[in-house]
């Protein structure tokens, strides 16, 4: 087991935990941040998997813009999950 695959496994665990957190969290802002973490980790994955174009896209669109859209929506509606 080399250095890289350990990182990949750790990231996978983090990814799944973040996804669970997105579903479980009662606080929508926290859920959105967790979903940004999911995007970030997938962006790192894309980079590891030799897809720099996709990694850049995911970083710009998935991590930044989508998160901002969610944040604006929460600001306009409400923060807690009833």
């Amino acid at each position: 087991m080399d250095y890289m695959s350990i990182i990949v496994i750790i990231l996978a665990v983090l990814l799944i935990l973040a996804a669970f957190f997105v579903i479980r969290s009662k606080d929508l802002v926290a859920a959105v941040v967790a979903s940004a973490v999911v995007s970030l980790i997938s962006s790192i994955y894309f980079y590891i998997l030799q897809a720099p174009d996709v990694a850049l896209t995911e970083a710009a669109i998935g991590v930044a813009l989508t998160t901002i859209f969610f944040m604006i929506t929460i600001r306009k509606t409400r923060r807690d999950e009833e």
Partner: protein
Amino acid sequence: MRKILAVFFIGVFGYYMLAILMDFPFGIDHLNPGLAGAYLKDTVSKTGAVNVVTSIIVNYRGFDTLGEVTVLFLAATGMSALLYDGKTMNRSRQNASVIVKAGSRLLFPLIIILGAYVFIHGHLTPGGGFQGGAIIASGFLLMFISYRNYHVSHRILSNVESTAGSVFVVLGLLGLLYGATFLENIMPLGIPNKLFSGGLIPLIYIAVGFKVGAELTALLDTMLKTVK
């Protein structure tokens, strides 16, 4: 009840998908020589671009990209149609602190230049119109957040959007006019790894970059403006 059903359904679905993926070991060489292999082999000599992904997106599957740009355009159109209420509102946010303001003033041009760099060099380095456009939009976002009254004219944005979109289609139509098929690469291919290479690819990606940048900025502005 609903949860149990959902878990059951997901279990079946997941089991099936896993069984399918098990038949396909990770990381082996499985390139279809006719398609993916041909892309890798011929891209540099036939399209002049060194980034194979870019050449696939803009040239081989350029029609998809036209559709993709249209999808973003649709989202921007649909959004402004749905949030339309006859009057424009101001963003009612506090001004950010002086440090943030000064920082954004400094960073904003750099971000815009970075975005432009990314989409102009799309055929040479990772990145391209979509990434560059998204970076530009995030530059504008920074200004929206730091300055309360920072104003981007929707008129200009929509003009940029329309012009860039039309340029894409017109470049395609030129291919029909001077070549034989829509979107055909009618320009000289140039020397690989130089900025002026790849024929139409950089031109189309620049148009896409402008369009995506303007669209995403418009999306952000529309959403922010309607904050109560």
